[in-house]
């Protein structure tokens, strides 16, 4: 018995989050600023000290190198933040999900609805960031229009997995582990310098991380260096997101329904 369809349920959860955020719109708005600040500081400020890097056979200025990295990293950070801290709070403290389940909503609706909200938010930020990149002349290919869907894909992959992992968290102390995973990725996934900086095995490790796949995908799109590697990154991120969502749904079932 499904009294409402998935689409309606997702719409309702989006509406709920929209209403909840309306009074704190500036929290939503200022979230956009962080990657822009990093772009200006590292890309422009530190970039003044660096000659540039080679991407797809041509030398590009440092800001153009770092900007897609910031875009990918902020897609990851935004999605992880939403599906760990906020999700945990709703799950354990405000008991929001228990309340939702008292209505005709199902656990699948909740997982999908929360992720949809997180993606919507991430999409708005990515679009804003792309416009900043355009204004600064850091985009050199029409492929760049696909960078917003690419950022959504990064959000889906990290959001799905983070949501699943959050269901195992016991207390706020466990969130140290979130920082311990995302921060090294943020700093070392070829975001700030090329992967060729790493020797041998270390380079393989970096190339296997999901953020690296996201960073190179975004960089390939904004610089126009699209190749089969880009398709591999897409498949990697889709698989990660779907796996995360499936686990999250099963865990929510066992946590909330039994």
């Amino acid at each position, binding site marked *: 018995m499904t009294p409402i369809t998935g689409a309606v349920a997702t719409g309702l959860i989006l509406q709920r989050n929209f209403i909840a955020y309306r009074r704190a719109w500036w929290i939503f708005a*200022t979230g956009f600023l962080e990657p822009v600040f990093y772009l200006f500081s590292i890309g422009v400020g530190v970039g003044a000290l660096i000659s540039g890097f080679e991407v797809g056979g041509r030398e590009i200025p440092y800001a153009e190198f770092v900007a897609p990295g910031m875009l990918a990293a902020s897609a990851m950070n935004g999605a992880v933040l939403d599906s760990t801290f906020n999700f945990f709070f709703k799950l354990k403290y405000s008991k929001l999900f228990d309340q939702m389940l008292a209505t005709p909503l199902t656990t699948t609706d909740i997982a999908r609805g929360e992720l949809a909200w997180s993606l919507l938010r991430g999409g708005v930020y990515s679009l804003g960031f792309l416009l900043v990149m355009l204004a600064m002349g850091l985009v050199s290919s029409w492929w760049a229009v696909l960078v917003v869907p690419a950022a959504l894909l990064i959000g889906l992959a990290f959001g799905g997995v983070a949501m699943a992992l959050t269901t195992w968290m016991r207390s706020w102390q466990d969130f140290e582990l979130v920082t311990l995973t995302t921060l*090294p990725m943020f700093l070392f996934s070829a975001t700030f*310098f090329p992967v060729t900086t790493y020797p041998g095995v270390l380079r393989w490790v970096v190339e296997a991380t999901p953020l690296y796949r996201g960073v190179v995908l975004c960089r390939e799109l904004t610089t126009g260096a699209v190749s089969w590697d880009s398709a591999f990154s897409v498949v990697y991120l889709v698989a990660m997101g779907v796996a995360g969502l499936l686990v999250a749904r099963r865990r929510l079932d066992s946590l909330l329904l039994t």
Partner: protein
Amino acid sequence: MSGSTAPAGPLQGALRLLDYWATVYRRTWRGSIVSSFVTPLLYVLAMGVLLGGFVEADAETLEGATSYLAFVVPGMVAATSMTTVVGEVTYPVMAMVKWNKTYYSMTATPLSVPDVVLAHLGFVAFRVAVTAAVFLAVTAPFGVYASLPGVLAAFVAQVLIGMAFAAPLYAFSAGLRDESAFSIVFRLGMIPMFLFSGAFFPVSNLDAPLEALAVATPLWHGVDLTRMLVLGLPDWSMVLVHVAYLAVLVVLGWWWAVRRLTRRMVL
């Protein structure tokens, strides 16, 4: 004066809270390892060592530092002193006033508001001192520090920098009704200062109005002070300016903190 249990002054009162803060620290020190130690060390590795390998180093453009690593390490030391205290005087203070109301239990004893503020800020000073000491010790092998006296002076400077942020922000948090303002403190205060106050690149690379803004921030004073001290290039008149600026913040912050918390809890 027999019979009275009231402490003679804020210092004596604050000392009576020593056991409270010792208990808190025994329970929470592990959680602070990631934020106050692993994070800045990773930044030093990523920015200083790896990205720094691509920077054409020139003492002229890097404020006297002969490598980007030497430039960024003192910047990270000072920035860490800031981020450490910001974490300690935002949510925890609101918890003490509003959520678990520990301050009310403390002031229900002969302890007064200044005692409570001094004990809390004393704990914050201890936290920043530990973080700075460990961070300076661990970054020593990178070989960018010029002399031991310089590093020791920089250590003392870190406590001053930390308190210059802690006291005013403590006052702000103490009177705050709703925690959502902290997002603004982090996103529009701490992060821009972290990124633009000379920790990662010389502020002279900014446009003139932005450079003036950066130079006005307490973090720039802290970064410049730390960098001059550890690299062994102190310009004593500037050292004096930095110390005076930071000390004024501590004093004004203390005054405001006591006043604001008294109004919130007593009046």
